C-alpha cells in the first residue's frame, strides 16, 4: 500500500511539473510560431501576385485556402490559391496566383515537397519547371507537354514536363486543374468576394 501510494505521488508530481513547464514554454513560443507561419504565407502570396502589399484570406477549407492581394491603394491585384497535390513521395504543397478574372496564372511556387532529390524535387526549381507556369491561359484546362520543348514553343495552356519526373509534374498539373475548376465554381456560387475591402 505504501509503495503504490508512493508510485502514484511521484508520477503525478512529475506529470504536474512537466505540464506546468510545457504550458509556460507554449505561452512563450506560441505567438512566434503562429507569426512565422503567417509570414511564410504572406511572402508566398507576394511572390505569386506581383505588386502585392497586403494579403487577406477570403476563403478556406481543408487544404484549399484562397487569398487576395492588394496594392497600397487597396486595389485587388489578384488571388492566390494555396493547396496540395498528391506527389510521388508525399504531398506537394504549393501556391499559385491568378488574375482577378481567373483567366491567367501569374506564377506558381512550391512551398513544401519531399520528392526524390535530383528528379522529382526539380518541380520546385524555377529553371526546370516553375518558369513554364508564368502567364498560362486557364480559360480551358491545362495540359502537360511531353517531351519538354522550348518555352516559346508551348501553347498558351501547356506546361513542360520535368524529364524523369512525369509523376510529380502530372500531380501538380492535375491538382491545379482541379483547383481552377473549384475556384470558378466557388465564384459562380458567390462563396467569396474578390472586390471590396471586407473585414480587415
Amino acid at each position, binding site marked *: 500500500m505504501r509503495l503504490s501510494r508512493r508510485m502514484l505521488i*511521484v508520477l503525478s508530481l512529475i506529470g504536474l511539473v512537466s505540464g506546468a*513547464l510545457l504550458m509556460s*514554454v507554449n505561452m512563450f513560443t506560441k505567438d512566434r*510560431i503562429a507569426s*512565422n507561419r503567417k509570414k511564410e504565407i504572406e511572402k508566398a502570396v507576394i511572390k505569386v501576385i506581383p505588386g502585392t502589399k497586403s494579403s487577406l484570406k477570403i476563403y478556406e477549407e481543408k487544404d484549399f485556402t484562397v487569398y487576395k492581394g492588394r496594392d497600397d491603394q487597396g486595389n485587388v491585384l489578384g488571388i492566390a490559391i494555396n493547396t496540395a497535390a498528391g506527389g510521388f513521395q508525399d504531398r506537394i504543397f504549393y501556391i499559385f496566383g491568378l488574375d482577378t478574372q481567373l483567366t491567367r496564372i501569374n506564377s506558381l511556387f512550391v512551398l513544401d515537397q519531399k520528392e*526524390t532529390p535530383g528528379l522529382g524535387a526539380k518541380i520546385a526549381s524555377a529553371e526546370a519547371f516553375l518558369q513554364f507556369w508564368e502567364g498560362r491561359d486557364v480559360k480551358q484546362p491545362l495540359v502537360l507537354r511531353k517531351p519538354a520543348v522550348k518555352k516559346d514553343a508551348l501553347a498558351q495552356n501547356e506546361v513542360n514536363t520535368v524529364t524523369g519526373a512525369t509523376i510529380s509534374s502530372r500531380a501538380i498539373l492535375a491538382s491545379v486543374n482541379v483547383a481552377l475548376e473549384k475556384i470558378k465554381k466557388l465564384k459562380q456560387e458567390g462563396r467569396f468576394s474578390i472586390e471590396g475591402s471586407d473585414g480587415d
Partner: protein
Amino acid sequence: MATRTNWEEFSKGLWLDNPVSRQLLGMCSTLAITNAVINGIAMGLAVGFVMICSSFLVSLIRKFIPNQVRIASYIVIIASFVTIADRFLAAYFPPLSKALGPYVPLIVVNCIILGRAEAFASKNTVGRSLIDALGMSVGYIVALLILSSVREILGSGTILGYGVMGDWFEPWIIMILPPGAFIALGILIAIAFQIERKVKQRS
C-alpha cells in the same frame, strides 16, 4: 566504476562508448537526418540538450522514484524536454524545424537518451551524470557531423550549402537518399572498429 576520473567519464562518450559508432543507438534519426550538415548540427544539439537536461533531472530525483515506475518517469521527463526543444526550433528556426520534421518529436524514443537515464543517471551523482551526458552528446554530435559532411559533400557537392566541389563534380544523389545513409554509416563504423583493433594490437 567509481574509480573513473572525470575525464574518463567524459571521454568514453567520444570514442570507447560512442553512441553511434559503438553502442549503435539512435540509428533511426541518425540515418534519416544526416543528409545535410545543418540538419546534423541541429539534431545533434537538440539531442544533446535533451540528454543533458534529462540526465541532470533523473539523477537529481533518482532516490525518490520507485523502481517500478522509473521508466515511465524517465519518459515523461524526456518528453517534456523534447517538446521544449521542438517548440523552440519551430519558434526561432522555422526552416530547420521543417527540415527535421517528425524526427524532433521522435527524440522521445531515442534509445541513447533513455539508455543514459537508465544505465547511468539513475545510478550516479548529479555531477557524474552531467559529465557523462555531456560526453555522450559531444560524441553524438561529432558522429553526426562526420556522417552528414560525407553525405552532403558527395550527395550535393556542398557543405553547409556552400559549393566545395568544382563544376566537374556530378553529385552522387544516392548519398542523400536513404541507401546513402546506410552505406556511409556502415563504412564509418567499419573504420572505427578497424582503428580500435589497430590500437589494441599495438598495446
